[in-house]
């Protein structure tokens, strides 16, 4: 287990020595996996707060969050997409929460009270950003490998 995962696990309740993050523990044999009733779900719940069901704000490719309903701290997925577009080469796990907060506040279209940000909300944004970042990275790798095949 890496430090990043351990840090994130520290924020969960009822940890045991066998607790892992579902996204980090790679399966290598027969295992039993139990999801605690109280398991925290940062991405879907925004650190305990349900994301809005209707989400029409989307990015326009320039890192800006487009018009529509304004984007709030709890809109982790929309913020993540905008952050990936604005900082495509930044590994979200290397960004401190203070910097992450500033990045979000600087996004065009973001409109929420800076004072209402907190660690769970920032953590939800970071995890959503990480997911988008990894997805984008794997797509880039695929494109690059396709290009190699074409030029050989």
């Amino acid at each position, binding site marked *: 287990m890496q430090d990043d995962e351990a840090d994130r696990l520290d924020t969960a309740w009822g940890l045991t020595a066998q607790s892992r993050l579902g*996204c980090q523990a790679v399966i290598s044999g027969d*295992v*039993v996996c139990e*999801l605690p009733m109280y398991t925290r779900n940062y991405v879907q719940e925004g650190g305990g707060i349900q994301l809005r069901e209707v989400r029409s704000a989307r990015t326009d490719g320039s890192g800006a969050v487009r018009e529509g309903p304004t984007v709030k701290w709890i809109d982790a997925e929309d913020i993540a997409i905008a952050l990936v577009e604005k900082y495509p080469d930044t590994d979200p796990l290397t960004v401190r929460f203070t910097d992450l907060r500033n990045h979000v506040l600087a996004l065009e279209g973001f409109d929420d009270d800076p004072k209402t940000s907190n660690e769970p909300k920032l953590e939800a944004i970071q995890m959503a950003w990480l997911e988008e970042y990894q997805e984008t990275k794997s797509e880039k790798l695929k494109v690059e490998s396709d290009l190699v095949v074409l030029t050989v």
Partner: protein
Amino acid sequence: MPKVTFIIDGEAQTVEFEHGKLPYSHHGKPESFLDVAKNFGIPSSTHAAAVVRVRPVTSSSNKATNI
């Protein structure tokens, strides 16, 4: 072929997959619990940072590891 038993709300559901043949679901690390759950449509609301408890079926070599 790894066999994974997911216990959600006390109900067990077991799935099997072959290493290297599981399509990546774009959720978590490839062949992670999250990836496997997504691939098999395990009815859970979990995403990237969900916490799971893992225990090997046998105490020998079968256990979850990190790449």
